[in-house]
C-alpha cells in the first residue's frame, strides 16, 4: 500500500486557500436536494428543554444513527424510524406530555385555564397547541394542523374526564408526528431565478436554528420567516447576528463539537477498575464536560483562535477529575472550576485531556492506533483505510516477547507490507500520546521501559504530546476540517465535490478572521450556500407502495 504524500498535498492546499481567500464572495453552489432529517438525540433533548424547560425529563433509547461525513447530524438525513424506535418515541412523548401538564408546570406552560378541569375546553386547547405547535413543528400551524390535536385533546378529555389529560394526549400526538420528528424542508419557486427553487422561509429558519443552536427556531426567528425577512440579506444578517450573540449558541456549539469528536460513546465508556481504579462513570461524564467547556470557553466565550484548542493549558476541573489528573481541587464538591496546567506539565490541548485519551483507548490499555486514527479522521478530516482482512497479527505482536512498549509492538507492524501503509498514518501520531495511559493518566514508562513519545505529524517533528498538539495547531488540515464539518452540519449533508472551492473560500475567510469560530459561523450562516437547494424529484402518491409486512 502506498503512502499518501499528505504534507505535499497540504502545502498545495494552503496555496489554493490563499488564492481562494482573495475573492470577496463565496463561490456559488447548486446545492443538493432539500433534506428530511430525523431529529438526533441531542437535538430532541435540546428542543424539549428549550420549549418546555430543562426540568422536563426525557427518558428512553434512540435508534442508532450512522456517522456520515464524520457527523451523526449528517447521518440523520438518511435515518429511518423503526417500529421499536417509534415505540420509544411514543413512550417519551407520553412521559414528556404528562410532565408538561403536571400541576407543577401547567401554570407556566399552558397559556390559559380551562373552564372546567374535568372536561374539554376547545379554546384553551387551541391556544396551547397554537403556541406549542408553532415551536414543535417549526412553523405556524395550518388550520388542519391545529384542528387535529385540538380534536384529539377534546375526545381524550371527555373519555378520561380531565382537560389536562386530554391536553397531554394531544401533545403526545404532536411529539410522535413526523412534522416534529423529522426536520422537513420545503421549496418554493425562486423569484430571483426563474425556473429554479429556493428553500421556503421556515425551512431557512430551521437550517439556521439547527446549525447555530441545535434546536428549534425561537419566536423571533419564526416571525422573521413569516415576514419574509430571511429572503432578504439585511433580514438574514440581522437574525444571524442575533443568533450568534445568543447564549443558545453555546449549547449549539457544544452539540456540534460533541458530534465532531464522537463523544456520545463517553456515556458508556468502560475501563478496567483493577487497572484504572481512578476511572469511573463520573470521571467519564466530567471528562466530556471538561472538554466541551474548554472548547466553548476558548472559541465562543473568549472568541479565541480555534487552533489554540490544540495547545491551550486553560481548562476546567472538577472533584472527580482532580483524582485522575492528580491535581488538588480546592472544593471537590463545587462543580467545575477554572484550571490552568503549569508550563512544565505535559498536558496542553484537547487531545491531552482524559476525554479524548481515554475514549480512544482499550478498556485496559492505551491504543496508539485508535488515537492516531481519531486524530486523522475526526480532527484533520483524513480517511484512514480499514485494516486488511487477512493479516495474522500474532506474527508481530506477542505479549510474551521482549517488546514491552506500544512502540515496540507497533514497530513490528512495519514488517508487514499490508499493515505498514495505514499504521504509518496513525501510529507516529498515536505514539506521541503514549505518556497518557488508557484512562488518560500521565505515565513515563510502560512495563518498566521508558516511553519514547517523539514523532512526526505531516512533516513537523515533535518530542512529546504537547509538541504533537503544537504540530496539530500548525497543520492546515485542522482548521479546514472544522470548516468542512460545520458546513456539513449546517446543510445536513456531506459537502459536494463541486463545493471544494466553496470550502476553501470559507477556510480562507476563517484564517482572515484569526480562526474565530463565531466569524466562521456568521460567514456560513449568511451565505447563499447554506440554503442552496435543487428542486426535489417528487413521485406521485399512486406509485408508493406500503413497506413489506405492513400490518394494516
Amino acid at each position, binding site marked *: 500500500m502506498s503512502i499518501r504524500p499528505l504534507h505535499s498535498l497540504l502545502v498545495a492546499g494552503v496555496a489554493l486557500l490563499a488564492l481562494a481567500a482573495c475573492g470577496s464572495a463565496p463561490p456559488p453552489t447548486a446545492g443538493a436536494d432539500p433534506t428530511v432529517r430525523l431529529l438526533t438525540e441531542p437535538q430532541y433533548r435540546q428542543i424539549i428543554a428549550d420549549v418546555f424547560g430543562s426540568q422536563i425529563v426525557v427518558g428512553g*433509547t434512540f435508534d442508532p444513527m450512522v456517522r456520515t461525513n464524520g457527523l451523526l447530524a449528517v447521518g440523520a438525513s438518511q435515518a429511518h424510524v423503526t417500529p421499536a424506535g417509534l415505540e420509544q418515541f411514543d413512550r417519551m412523548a407520553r412521559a414528556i406530555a404528562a410532565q408538561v401538564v403536571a400541576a407543577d408546570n401547567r401554570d407556566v406552560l399552558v397559556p390559559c385555564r380551562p373552564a372546567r378541569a374535568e372536561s374539554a375546553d376547545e379554546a384553551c386547547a387551541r391556544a396551547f397547541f397554537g403556541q406549542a405547535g408553532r415551536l414543535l413543528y417549526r412553523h405556524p400551524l395550518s388550520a388542519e394542523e391545529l384542528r387535529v390535536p385540538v380534536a384529539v385533546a377534546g375526545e381524550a378529555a371527555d*373519555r378520561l374526564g380531565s382537560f389536562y389529560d386530554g391536553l397531554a394526549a394531544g401533545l403526545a400526538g404532536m411529539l410522535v408526528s413526523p412534522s416534529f420528528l423529522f426536520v422537513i424542508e420545503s421549496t418554493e419557486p425562486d423569484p430571483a431565478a426563474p425556473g429554479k427553487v429556493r428553500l421556503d422561509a421556515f425551512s431557512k429558519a430551521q437550517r439556521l436554528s439547527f446549525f447555530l443552536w441545535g434546536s428549534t427556531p425561537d419566536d423571533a426567528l419564526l416571525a422573521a420567516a413569516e415576514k419574509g425577512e430571511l429572503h432578504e440579506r439585511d433580514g438574514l444578517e440581522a437574525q444571524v447576528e442575533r443568533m450568534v450573540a445568543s447564549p443558545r449558541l453555546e449549547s449549539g456549539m457544544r452539540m456540534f463539537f460533541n458530534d465532531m469528536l464522537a463523544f456520545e460513546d463517553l456515556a458508556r465508556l468502560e475501563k478496567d477498575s*483493577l487497572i484504572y481504579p481512578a476511572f469511573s462513570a463520573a470521571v467519564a461524564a466530567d471528562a466530556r464536560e471538561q472538554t466541551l467547556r474548554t472548547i466553548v470557553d476558548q472559541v465562543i466565550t473568549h472568541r479565541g483562535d480555534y487552533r489554540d484548542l490544540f495547545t491551550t493549558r486553560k481548562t476546567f476541573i472538577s472533584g472527580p477529575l482532580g483524582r485522575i489528573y492528580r491535581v488538588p481541587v480546592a472544593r471537590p464538591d463545587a462543580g467545575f472550576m477554572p484550571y490552568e496546567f503549569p508550563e512544565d506539565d505535559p498536558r496542553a490541548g484537547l487531545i491531552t485531556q482524559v476525554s479524548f485519551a481515554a475514549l480512544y483507548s482499550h478498556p485496559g490499555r492505551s491504543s496508539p492506533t485508535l488515537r492516531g486514527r481519531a486524530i486523522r479522521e475526526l480532527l484533520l478530516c483524513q480517511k484512514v483505510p480499514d485494516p486488511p*482482512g487477512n493479516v495474522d497479527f500474532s506474527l508481530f505482536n506477542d505479549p510474551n516477547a521482549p517488546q514491552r512498549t506500544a512502540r515496540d509492538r507497533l514497530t513490528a507492524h512495519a514488517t508487514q507490507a499490508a499493515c505498514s501503509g495505514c499504521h504509518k498514518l496513525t501510529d507516529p501520531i498515536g505514539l506521541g500520546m503514549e505518556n497518557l495511559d488508557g484512562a488518560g493518566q500521565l505515565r513515563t514508562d510502560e512495563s518498566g521501559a521508558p516511553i519514547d513519545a517523539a514523532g512526526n505529524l505531516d512533516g513537523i517533528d515533535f518530542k512529546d504530546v504537547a509538541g504533537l498538539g503544537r504540530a496539530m495547531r500548525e497543520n492546515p488540515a485542522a482548521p479546514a476540517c472544522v470548516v468542512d464539518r460545520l458546513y456539513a452540519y449546517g446543510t445536513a449533508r456531506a459537502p459536494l465535490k463541486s463545493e471544494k472551492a466553496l470550502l476553501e473560500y470559507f477556510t480562507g475567510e476563517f484564517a482572515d478572521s484569526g480562526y474565530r469560530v463565531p466569524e466562521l459561523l456568521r460567514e456560513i450562516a449568511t451565505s447563499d450556500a447554506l440554503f442552496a437547494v435543487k428542486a426535489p424529484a417528487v413521485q406521485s402518491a399512486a406509485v408508493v407502495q406500503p413497506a413489506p409486512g405492513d400490518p394494516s
Partner: protein
Amino acid sequence: MTVLLKRPATRRSVLRGMLGGASVGVALPFLDVFLNESGTALADTGAPIPVRFGTWYWGLGHTPGHAIAPKTKTGPGITFLEECKSLKPYEQHLNYFGGFNMPLDGRSNYTHFTGWVASRTGSAPSSNSDIPAPTLDLLVADQIAGNTRFRTIDCTSVGIPRENYSARSTNNRAAAEASAERLYARVFGGEFADPNKGEFTPDPKVMVRKSVLSAVREDSKALEKKLGAADRARLDEYFTSIRQLENQLDLQLKKPEPNAACTLPERPRKEGDEQHIKAGLEVDTVVENHRIMAKLMAMAVACNQTRIFNMVFSDNFSHLRRPGQTYTHHLLTHEETWDKELGYQPVAFWFNCRQMDAFATFIETFKSIPEGAGTLLDNVLIFAATETNYARVHSIDGVPVFTAGHAGGRIKTGLHVVGNGDPITRVGLTAMQIMGLSLDTWGTRSLQTSKTISEIVA
C-alpha cells in the same frame, strides 16, 4: 426555567378526573384440556402453536480444530470438542453447519463486519457500515410477526444498544434492549395483559393512545406529496411503524387467549437493589445479564408478545474482558501467543468456551418452558451465527453456524451439515423456507443461492 413556551400565571390546584372504563370479568383458567390430543394446536380454536424465529449472535467465531470436529459428509452426529462441550447435551436439538464459504467477488472483508452482514443479508457490504439488504429475521418478521405486540424483540447482553445485528438497511436499524430491567418494563410492565388472569379491564388510556396515533397518521399523509422518492420511502417506513404501534394497542384492548406456557417472569433487580447486575463488558457480568435477558426473552415468546427475537451475546469485536487484564477478547485473538502444545491461544480459547456455554444456556432456557406437549424449543428455530471462522486471521470462509430448535417439527436435527465450499447463504435460505417464506433464491452475486439444504428439511 427559561422556556420558549410560557405564560405568566398564578398557580392553582385542579382536581384531576378519574379514569373511566368498564371492567370485564372473564375467569378462564388455561388448562391442558384446551390443547388437542397431539398437543400441537389449541383445541378450542384449532389454531396451531405458532413457530417462532430467533437469532443468537456471538463474536469472533471458533478456535478451529477445537470446537467441532470436521466431517466429510453431511449426516447425523456432531462431534463437540472442548470449546463446544457444553452443547453436547443439546445435540438432538441442534444442527451444525461447517465448510460454507463467503465469496465476496472482490469486495473487501471489512473485519468483523462483512461476516455477519453477508450471512444475515445474503449480500456482501460495500463499506464498513453498509447493510445492503434486510437481515433474514426481518424478512421472516414480514411473514409471521402479525398479531403480536412486538414485531421483534432485540436484546444485547453487552449493555450497548447499537449492538444489534438486525436491520432493514444501513440507516434503518433499531436499538437493542441493553438492560434486563428495561426489557422487563417494556414487555411485562404495566402494559402487559396476563393471559391467564381472570380479570381483564380495557384501559381507556390505551383507547386514547390509539385514537392519537390514528389522527397523527391521517394528518401526516399530506406530507408525502412534499417529498422525493427516497424520503417518501422513509415516511412509509414511519407509517408502518405507526401501524405496528396501533396494532400493539389493539391487542392491549383485547382479552388475550389463555396460555399455559406463559407465566410472569421474575422482575430483574433494579439499580440500587442488592444483587443488581450493572451493564458492562466483564465476561461474568455479560454472562449473568444474558442469562436474565434470555429468560425474559423466552417468556416474551411463550407469552405471544413477539414471534421474532434476536439476542447478541457478545459484539462483533467481542470486547469481553476479564477483570485486571489489559487484553480484551478481541485483542487476545490477535496478540496472544499461540501455545504450541495446546494448539491455540489459551485465553482467547477460554473466552470462546464461555460463549458456547452461553449458547447452551440460551437453548436450555427455551427448553425449560413447557409448551403444548413439549417445550418452547420445539416451536422455535434459532439461527446462531458469528462473523468470522478464525478471528486471529479474520477468516470468513468456513464461518460456523448452528440452528437450534425444532420449528414445530419442520426441521431435522442432530445433523452436521458439510458445506463443501457452497455459499453460507444456503443456511439462511433454508431457515427462511422452513419458516414458511416463499423464497426460491436469496442473496446477491456469488452469495446468491437457490439451493435448499434439503437434508435438514423435515
